[in-house]
């Protein structure tokens, strides 16, 4: 189902992931999170921006285990665990945060 962001239409796949990663803008994450009744904080944006950087560099979305380790290294050991990430993204850091970031579903994510 396509989503509307600031008057622009973005195509998505059947699971709600953005069809074209290059079209992404921050408003996409805002609109998607609103649909999930989630308010995005700086902590959410840290993860979303990190995912976009990771994709830019490696051309894949990281697996949860890889993301967890990387977050611990970048943002502090207290944040490098799945409890912290699921606290921010209740539907799962990979599935929900990657979707907000405009990334495809992570490889191996079931």
């Amino acid at each position: 189902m396509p989503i509307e962001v600031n008057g622009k239409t973005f195509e998505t796949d059947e699971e709600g992931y953005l069809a074209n990663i290059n079209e992404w803008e921050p408003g996409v994450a805002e609109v998607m999170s609103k649909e999930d009744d989630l308010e995005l904080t700086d902590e959410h944006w840290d993860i979303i921006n990190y995912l976009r950087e990771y994709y830019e560099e490696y051309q894949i979305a990281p697996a949860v285990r890889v993301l967890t380790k990387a977050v611990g290294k970048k943002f502090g050991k207290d944040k490098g665990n799945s409890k912290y990430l699921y606290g921010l993204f209740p539907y799962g850091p990979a599935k929900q945060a990657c979707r907000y970031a405009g990334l495809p579903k992570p490889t191996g994510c079931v």
Partner: protein
Amino acid sequence: MSETIKNFLYLNRKAPYGTIYAWESLEVVLIGAAFDQDVSLAFVDDGVFQLTKSQNTSAVGMKNFSPTYAALGDYEVKKIFVEKESLEERGLSLDDLQHLTWEDEDEDWAEKDSIHLVNRAEMAAIMDDADVVFSF
């Protein structure tokens, strides 16, 4: 749950873009890496081209997935064996390949090389030692 850790070897023999094998192999490796097994990758024959630097796929209209090999270290894939003879037969050397590393958490994230050059006899022994060989 069985505690047995098996030694999986992913054997890559084909050039990266003429077929889907190289990308399929890489995807299986990334998925399989979640299962805490002992994973090694081997590159022989035209498979060595998969690891070359500065790939440009704009003319063939396929996604350049070569940057993804650099993520293997994050997935705890630390053993990448490249056959020396296959490189030489194609006029390539280690310098033509990406510099792939992994970070050792126990040594303050020290970067260590993932790629190991081995000769044909050594490669045969590596295949022989593996519990499971996936050939792509």
